[in-house]
């Protein structure tokens, strides 16, 4: 009996690790467009919203979507792109897991005459003819928006602590750069400490606790994503201070939990990083499939939220 249970458990475990298989249907030639999309994974609420947006927009646009989930691994993503090439889909789109190592597989796509669109993340390649366009957020601009709001909404000396995203990640580098650029004009605003909070709540909380103990003059927290900001809120409250009042908080992303904290007054300002790029992507797919020229860099439409705007936007928020 014990053995059977063990065998059953082994099968379950194997099934857990082995999902993410590629779609097997070939592309039909009945006039409908086929899009092969290789997603990074399902690592966050942001990514899930991104996936749902793409699936929904494809359905609405009448585009046949072949979808695969790479589970954060480049080799999985390359494998699914190869299978899309074999299926001879009309357009391939993907969010690259990492920046480098795409030249070979993209060259294969080019030879097969299949246009490629990058979404959300860029690749690092000298040959930009390998893809048609890159549709994604401008992380530097997101940092600038956060900085500009602070410049407009502070008088007197303001000490900022920064919770960075994972060291080396593109959003972390760019959001830091944009923010510094925007506040550099103001002599009152000073970033007094900056540390890696790893884009997680635990990380944000732990770093913020250390900041609160080593600096007693913190006015503003700038977190590179909502989750770290939510962690910081817990740390601020544990220190006996009022988040949003005693220490103001600015974050980037605008996922639901962050928006709720914003509406409740615990966060002061959120810069949106919009995962809902499905519709824009489908328009691009139709354009490149028709052979139209598109610009190499297209930015996702993004906005910012104050506390009042968050309250108004929350009921219709999809993620």
């Amino acid at each position, binding site marked *: 009996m014990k053995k059977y249970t*063990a065998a059953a458990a082994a099968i379950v475990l194997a099934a857990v*690790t082995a999902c993410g298989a590629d779609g097997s249907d070939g592309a039909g030639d009945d006039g409908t467009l086929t899009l092969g999309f290789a997603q990074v994974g399902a*690592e966050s609420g942001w990514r899930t919203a991104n996936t749902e947006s793409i699936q929904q927009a494809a359905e609405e646009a009448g585009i046949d979507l072949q979808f695969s989930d790479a589970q954060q691994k480049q080799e999985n993503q390359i494998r699914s792109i190869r299978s899309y090439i074999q299926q001879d889909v009309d357009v391939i789109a993907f969010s690259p897991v990492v920046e480098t190592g795409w030249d070979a597989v993209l060259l294969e796509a080019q030879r097969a005459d299949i246009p490629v669109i990058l979404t959300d993340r860029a690749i690092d390649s000298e040959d930009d003819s390998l893809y048609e366009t890159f549709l994604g957020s401008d992380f530097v601009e997101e940092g600038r928006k956060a900085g500009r709001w602070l410049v407009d909404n502070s008088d007197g000396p303001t000490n900022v602590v920064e919770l960075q995203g994972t060291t080396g990640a593109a959003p972390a580098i760019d959001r830091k750069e944009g923010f510094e650029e925007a506040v550099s004009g103001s002599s009152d605003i000073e970033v007094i400490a900056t540390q890696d909070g790893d884009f997680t709540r635990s990380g944000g909380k*732990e770093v913020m606790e250390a900041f609160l*103990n*080593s600096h007693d003059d913190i006015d503003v927290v700038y977190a590179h994503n909502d989750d770290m900001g939510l962690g910081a809120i*817990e740390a601020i409250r544990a220190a006996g201070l009022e988040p949003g009042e005693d220490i103001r908080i600015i974050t980037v992303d605008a996922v639901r939990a962050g928006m709720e904290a914003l509406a409740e007054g615990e966060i002061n300002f959120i810069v949106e990083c919009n995962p809902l790029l499905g519709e824009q992507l489908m328009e691009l797919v139709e354009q490149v499939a028709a052979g139209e020229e598109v610009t190499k860099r297209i930015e996702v439409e993004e906005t910012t939220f104050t506390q009042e705007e968050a309250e108004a936007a929350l009921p219709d928020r999809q993620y």
Partner: protein
Amino acid sequence: MRPRQLLRHHLFWPIAALVLLLVLNTVSNPSFLEIRLQNGQLYGSLVDILRNGAPTLLIAVGMTLVIATRGIDLSVGAVAAIAGAVACTWIASGGSAATAVLLALGACVLLGLWNGFLVSVLGIQPIIATLVLMTAGRGAAMLVTEGQIITVDDPLYHQIGAGFLVLPIAVLVSLGVLVGVALLTRGTALGMLVESVGVNPRASLLAGVRSRTIIWTVYVFAGLCAGVAGLMISSNVNAADANNAGLWIEMDAILAVVIGGTSLAGGRYSLAGTLVGALVIQTLTTTVYSIGVAPNAALVFKAVVVIAVCLLQSPRTSQVFGVRRKAGPRPSRSEEVTAA
């Protein structure tokens, strides 16, 4: 204890590192050691170090016993993620905190049974047996949470990781388990039996020790410790993050055990050492944040400290110290200490 013996004590260098880190922090921020009572709970950097180190300490206690049997458990981080995922999903769907905790810990005991079964009954090498769950477990946690970060708002659940009874509850739990295990294994013959299994399972079996039961039990215990630690981690931030909760905590726990002087070859263990090891690791992390080491240099800073401690602790180095100070007529002394 004379200075020479003190220097050769296996915990001398880890404790020295700990003191050095605390001094470094105090120099950079004079109020570092300050602890004040705020709303009936202690508040300060030292309290934060203890509280944030509690999950690592708890997992390291379980890991110490596993390693003492010449095993290793790589799956603890994934098990911690599963515990948080199960508990938060249950609470989010309207369940009570108490049931959530029981469910989560039940799941972790099952996972510990699974690991123990692979190692003790099927005889699979521990590093491989637990690797299965290390990779698959995080996937299972993501299945439970459907890939989302589950946020919960339950005051009772929040107590596990962030609550206080003057001291943080998480610290009390971890220290309680540490003391309990110390009393149970060192107060009875159990600790010696665990060590004998680590030295030679077959010989122990022939001598009448139930090797299989002991090995199985330590994996279940490690799973349970990981489960409680997972609850602390998720309750601390009121959320279950299947991707990141307890990520790489198995490495921290193994490091804590090794810094504490427990041999990976099995056969001996030191719970006091594990406590010191866990404190060194957490203090190191807090130091990086407090004294403002640049984030891109943080990992190098940590690595340098860990390497320094391990080098100073190594038998060869202590031999060098022994040889240099060997003035008396007892030449065999240094070998004795390295073997102890």
